[in-house]
């Protein structure tokens, strides 16, 4: 079945350092979505990427979809303590399909 993988599983960074998490699949991804889940919270939708090579920015967050649509990345510049949480990538083939989540990358920021 379809599987979405993420690396690293955990990342500890000093406040102000950059952070990147990678999402990979052996099959072509359709619509990559990124979610953030704060400790004790629920997943919150951040963004969706659809086109090959697409790059989107949200303030300090940069999201990228690979040219072959088999990988995606989320990069955070100059992390802050408010960035703490688990970041999930997820794939959804069409609006009629379920969203399949990766295992997530847990980010800790040391002040």
């Amino acid at each position, binding site marked *: 079945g379809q599987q979405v993988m993420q690396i690293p599983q955990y990342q500890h960074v000093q406040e102000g350092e950059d952070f990147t998490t990678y999402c990979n699949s052996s099959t072509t991804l359709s619509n990559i979505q990124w979610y953030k889940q704060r400790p004790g919270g*629920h*997943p919150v939708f951040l963004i969706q990427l659809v086109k090959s090579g697409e790059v989107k920015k949200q303030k300090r967050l940069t999201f990228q979809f690979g040219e072959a649509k088999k990988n995606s990345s989320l990069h955070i510049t100059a992390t802050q303590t408010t960035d703490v949480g688990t970041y999930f990538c997820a794939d959804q083939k069409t*609006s009629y399909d*379920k*969203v*399949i*989540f990766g295992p997530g990358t847990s980010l800790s920021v040391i002040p």
Partner: protein
Amino acid sequence: DAGVTQSPTHLIKTRGQQVTLRCSPKSGHDTVSWYQQALGQGPQFIFQYYEEEERQRGNFPDRFSGHQFPNYSSELNVNALLLGDSALYLCASSLLVAIRGYTFGSGTRLTVV
């Protein structure tokens, strides 16, 4: 504009018991999906409801069942609870015809003892 609401927030049940979790979707959404999230893992798809019917189902046993009502709200029922059913159960709502990401509720934390 209310988001997704789930009840109860926490629940403790004994092995073998049955549980019902409830979800009201975001206003304007017509589709409800249920996910199980074990500690430290990503959400696992249980099933999805649209127009009061189960459209898709993940790899969960028949002990997990659901329902959607005419007002789009939904219930998740789990029978014969096992210790391994302890998890955060998340309800997500969306619009079937549009990919705009899911809106999740705060979840129900189920503990089976």
